[in-house]
């Protein structure tokens, strides 16, 4: 199968059907939520998941902006122009065939004219040592939640306390706006933009997974607990299920800084992955 077809198929499903890890934590939240309004919101969310899965309707009218995190193995065949052409083709035809809302404007400040294709996607690349494959991780990034994402440049001596306080403050400001219960990605370190990219990479991680570094794992557990103690709750109407999963990713940074970025995703945490065995240089590629 042509690569763009594999991408198209993955994205046709992603707009209607949540990944298993995401659906699992949402259904678990409905079992545990004690707040009656919070539970009502979770009941509607689960009904919505069922309607979308058994119809041709997207989960949400905001079908998001295509965001692609590309892991490129250092032994993979790789032609960036050929790969991007396939990504663009796959995104455009999935948006057409799966009835995505056209939500992308070609110019941000002045014309704001709709591209009518949901193109372009946002694409980032990362070199992966010891691999001969390319993996495309897609997010359908909704903007009710993206409008609550942000970066803070905190004091380098602020440490873990500073990171936790910055994330908590950003979430308190977000409140019910990003369609909680949310999925959160946190990026710490790098430059301002690198931290922001890492926060997206963190969103790609499986829901409920942990950072392999025990200190960051402890930070993830602490953040999850403290955010869920704020009583924002499902739909912002109260309850203990505000955040269902949080992932922290880190990178080296400068002696004078500690960038902290938060990417907020709504409960409809729509993701897809396509692995290209051996990489891609423009010839037909096997995918899984």
């Amino acid at each position, binding site marked *: 199968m042509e690569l763009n077809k594999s991408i198209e198929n993955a994205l046709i499903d992603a707009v209607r059907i949540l990944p298993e890890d995401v659906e699992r934590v949402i259904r678990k939240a409905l079992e545990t939520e004690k707040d009656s309004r919070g539970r*009502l919101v979770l009941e509607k*969310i689960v009904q919505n998941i069922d309607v*979308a899965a058994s119809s041709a*309707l*997207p989960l949400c*009218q905001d079908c998001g902006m295509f965001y692609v995190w590309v892991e490129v193995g250092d032994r993979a065949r790789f032609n960036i122009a050929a790969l991007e052409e396939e990504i663009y083709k796959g995104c455009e035809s999935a948006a057409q065939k799966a009835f995505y*809302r056209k939500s992308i404007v070609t110019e941000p400040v002045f014309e704001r004219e709709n591209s009518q294709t949901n193109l372009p996607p946002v694409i980032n690349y990362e070199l992966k040592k010891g691999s001969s494959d390319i993996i495309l991780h897609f997010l359908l990034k909704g903007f009710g939640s993206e409008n609550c994402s942000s970066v803070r440049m905190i004091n380098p001596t602020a440490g873990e306390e500073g990171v936790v306080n910055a994330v908590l403050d950003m979430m308190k400001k977000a409140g*019910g706006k990003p369609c909680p219960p949310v999925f959160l990605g946190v990026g710490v370190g790098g430059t301002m933009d690198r931290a922001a990219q890492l926060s997206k990479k963190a969103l790609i991680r499986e829901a409920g997974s942990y950072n392999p570094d025990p200190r960051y794992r402890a930070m993830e557990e602490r953040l999850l607990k403290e955010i869920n103690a704020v009583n924002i709750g499902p739909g912002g109407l109260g309850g203990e299920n505000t955040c269902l999963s949080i992932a922290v990713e880190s990178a080296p940074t400068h002696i004078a800084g500690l960038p902290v970025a938060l990417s907020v995703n709504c409960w409809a945490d729509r993701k897809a992955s396509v692995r290209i065995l051996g990489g891609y240089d423009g010839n037909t590629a096997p995918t899984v």
Partner: protein
Amino acid sequence: MAILHLPFEEEELKSIKAGDEVLITGKLYVGRDQVHLRFKEILDRGGNLPIDFEGNGIYYMGPSPAPDGYEIGACGPTTSQRMDPFSPLMLSKGLRVMVGKGPRAKAVLDAVEKYHGLYLQAFGGCGALYASCVKKKSVVAYPELGPEALLLLEVENFPTICMADSSGNYLPSAIFV
């Protein structure tokens, strides 16, 4: 569980209290950012709006395209806060019922009290579920705005929660902090 028929009867609207689960049945207008901007420009010029607010409500929403055989695509609420700069003006011109999601500015909640309106929150992200509550859809004006066009829906048992009621009561989560 409360029911709100649209166009509304005064008594029914006033019986709905903050915190109630409210099912809407009837005719519901749809307009979001660009419709609000255009309405404000018309009102600033002293012109007439393409719709009469009397007895009606407005839903902040921009649907995805309707798949073959469907009346409408996914059609859940968008964030109400972006309409805050316009809502007190709309309420002063006769709008009484707003449907969206998320907290509002204090000025909007004050205007809801002053004009005895309602702010109802629809369930965020539940676009497929809401499509199953829409029986009919028509474009009233501004088709060039695509998903942001001014629409009229016929809805049945469209689920919401009352965030702010006509007596000036509101849930703590109704106000933007």
